[in-house]
């Protein structure tokens, strides 16, 4: 990011103000998309592997969905893992019991995640601030215990095994979905969601979401119900969470109750905050940093959680706008 922006400045020397900012607005996403599209080329070369990249992208998608609530509307949901996990189980069960179709599995993930969020939303959006967080945690735990105790259907503590992502039939030839191809499928889903979110944020509805965060009282005074807006945002983020969970389950051909646990919800929140919850790309950056840090630190020390926790505490204390916010202030100054 910072490299991009300094290059951008170097190519436009003395060009202050509007034009360079506009250039940057186009250049940054362009660089990001090129980087994402070429991951299977340069990431293994840096010592990574495709599974890790796909994992980061999947979790980044979930974090982006959460950020629709957290960053945009200012509501801290701590139950995002519930929709993520439910989406994962929906995908797995679909492959095992309904039909051996990867697209259907993904679709079911979206539907189940969105349905759960849509049904719980009305109760949750009555609350604000930390109480909203508490109730979303509690809802998440309810799903966790249902999945853990429904042994016959979900495999209980051991998780759901025995499904495999199926090749996608495209008429003349079948897309095999090996690790590189699967990365691109996830990237495609990510691109669609990111595009839709970007459109949404420019729409009146997106502006209304931001208004919930900025001045709810005025919004209600104008006759726009903040609760309904939050409910829509909650449902959308549940759908995205379900999608991400389905992709995650298909990535590992496995899903376990850990995917619904509140600590994972916390990890999603951490990703948003690490990267910067008020910025569009923040959650993805946070997820990438999180996954890489986890991968790197855990191979060096058993106490990697401490390192991650301390990093997180420092971000919260000193850089509440996250890594992207930090970079941005440096570019400006």
């Amino acid at each position, binding site marked *: 990011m910072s490299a991009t922006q300094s290059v951008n400045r170097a190519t436009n020397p003395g060009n202050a103000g509007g034009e360079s900012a506009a250039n940057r607005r186009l250049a940054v996403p362009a660089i990001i998309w090129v980087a994402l599209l070429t991951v299977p080329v340069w990431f293994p070369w840096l010592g990574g592997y495709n599974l890790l990249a796909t994992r980061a992208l999947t979790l980044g998608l979930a974090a982006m969905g959460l950020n629709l609530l957290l960053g945009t509307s200012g509501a801290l949901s701590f139950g995002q893992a519930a929709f993520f996990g439910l989406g994962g189980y929906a995908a797995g069960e679909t492959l095992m019991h309904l039909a051996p179709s990867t697209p259907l599995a993904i679709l079911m993930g979206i539907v189940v995640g969105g349905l759960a969020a849509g049904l719980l939303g009305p109760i949750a959006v*009555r609350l604000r601030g930390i109480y909203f967080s508490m109730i979303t945690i509690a809802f998440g*735990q309810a799903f966790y*215990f249902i999945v853990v*105790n429904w042994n016959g259907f979900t495999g209980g503590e051991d998780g759901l095994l025995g499904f495999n992502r199926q090749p996608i039939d495209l008429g003349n030839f079948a897309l095999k979905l090996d690790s590189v191809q699967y990365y691109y499928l996830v990237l495609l889903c990510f691109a669609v969601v990111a595009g839709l979110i970007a459109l949404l944020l420019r729409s009146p509805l997106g502006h209304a979401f931001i208004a919930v965060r900025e001045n709810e009282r005025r919004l209600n005074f104008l006759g726009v119900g903040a609760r309904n807006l939050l409910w829509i945002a909650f449902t959308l983020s549940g759908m995205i969470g379900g999608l991400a969970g389905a992709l995650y389950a298909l990535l590992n051909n496995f899903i376990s109750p850990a995917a619904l646990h*509140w600590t994972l919800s916390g990890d999603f929140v951490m990703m948003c905050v690490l990267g910067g919850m008020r910025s569009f790309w923040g959650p993805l950056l946070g997820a990438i940093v999180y996954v890489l840090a986890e991968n790197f630190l855990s191979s060096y020390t058993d106490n990697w959680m401490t390192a991650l926790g301390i990093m997180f505490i420092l971000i919260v204390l000193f850089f509440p706008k996250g890594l992207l916010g930090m970079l941005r202030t440096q570019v400006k100054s």
Partner: protein
Amino acid sequence: MELILFDVLNGLLLGVFYALMALGLSLILGLNRVINFAHGGFLALAGYLAYSLLPYLGFAGVLIVAPLLAALLGVLVERVLIRPLYGRDPLFSLLLTFGLVLVMQDLIRTIWGAQGLPLQTPAFLQSALSQTYFFITGYRVLILVIAVAFALGLLAFLRYTRVGLRILAGASDLDTVSALGVSIYQLRALSFAAGIFLAGVAGVLAAGWQGLSPQMGDSLIMPSFVAIIVGGVGSLLGSLLGGLLIGVASGITSAFYPQASELVIYVIMAVVLAIRPRGLLGKESIFG
């Protein structure tokens, strides 16, 4: 019949721990506006401190000293980490304490090891009081008595002492209390310490009951949140009641349908919220 009685009692014991945690959480939530995710970490820490101090102080000694040490550390954490976040969006302190949980658990693992440890309780408390009706050890009765005593002690402290009344007043209108010349920084430190102290008591008692593990607070923190929601956010008495209620409900459920003993807590929450959105004893407009 004896079995059900046993399960009710076990549920009551569980509820006592939920209630002690919820009471402390609720206190910190009310005045400090912090959801203290690290509450379970402090609980575990007090348990481990008790383990290390037991040879020197005896059980009665560690029951007081270990929670006090945990509370002292709590004040330190409040001073250094949480104080800079007062006045900012409360979600930052929630996030900070979430990060703190990770650090505290790792720290405990590093110092005391990851494997479970027992906390020796006095021998005379371990024999059964009665074998005819149901099996109950003196230690379980002691847990109940001590927990109730500490919980009531805290409520009395809040209601009948000058400082306690200030904490209560601060929880409902901090600006006015501050304008009247009360140091809210001291007040907040004190309320944080009191909350952690209760968690510490719960930690020592729980260690004697079920042993020590670095994650021992984890299984208690979520039900404690539920206890607060069920009891009504903003009501300390409600937290106490909510904790006992879900504990007993969970105990009874485990007699009939053990698989649902953890789930029933959340079912109760959903039912209470559907009928009474502000919780059993919650104030009218707490959710703003």
